[in-house]
């Protein structure tokens, strides 16, 4: 249960950072923390006591209890790639905004937009 709680803490930290931090780049960092939080949560679902890494060794026919659940791991590979893609695009946007408006502070940006 405590592992899940840490995931929830990271998630809340991320969402709070996104909403409250004034600088767009720091919002992006917070967004990444939020996405990592969800990944931590999924991976903690995959854990089985007394199970090993979900890669087949030389042993006999594999038993479900011996190995960890590979499905969340697969899902989280996708989630990590999604998070890096979004971050890459966002950084591209920020570079463009910075070169065009010379600031990444949200309030000053909104003033320039008005």
């Amino acid at each position, binding site marked *: 249960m*405590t592992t899940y709680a840490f995931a929830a803490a990271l998630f809340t*930290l991320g969402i709070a950072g996104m909403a409250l931090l004034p600088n767009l780049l720091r919002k992006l*960092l917070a967004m990444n923390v939020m996405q990592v939080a969800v990944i*931590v949560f999924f*991976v903690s679902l995959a854990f089985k006591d007394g199970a090993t890494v*979900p890669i087949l060794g030389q042993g006999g026919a594999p038993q479900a209890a011996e190995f960890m659940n590979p499905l969340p791991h697969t899902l989280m590979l996708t989630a990590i790639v999604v998070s890096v893609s979004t971050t890459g695009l966002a*950084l591209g946007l920020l570079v463009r905004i910075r070169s065009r408006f010379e600031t990444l502070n949200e309030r000053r940006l909104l003033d320039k937009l008005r």
Partner: protein
Amino acid sequence: MAEGHLISIGLLAAMVVSAACALAVKDLLTAAALFGAFSFLTATWFALLGAVDVAFTEACVGGALTTILFVSTAFRTSRRFD
């Protein structure tokens, strides 16, 4: 590895602390570095939990690539958050 295992909790706590610091710090490069640390701590925790593939990916994709991109953005824009 019982759930209450010290290392797992310790790592999780370190992750939360590094994430919080990354968000709190004012300088972009320090933030990028702290975020890199946060990613690598997460990768270690994944490895601890047996998710080796995810750990591998998180290390090189989340840890290395994202940090490089953040640092290069720092060079493209300004080091201080305004």
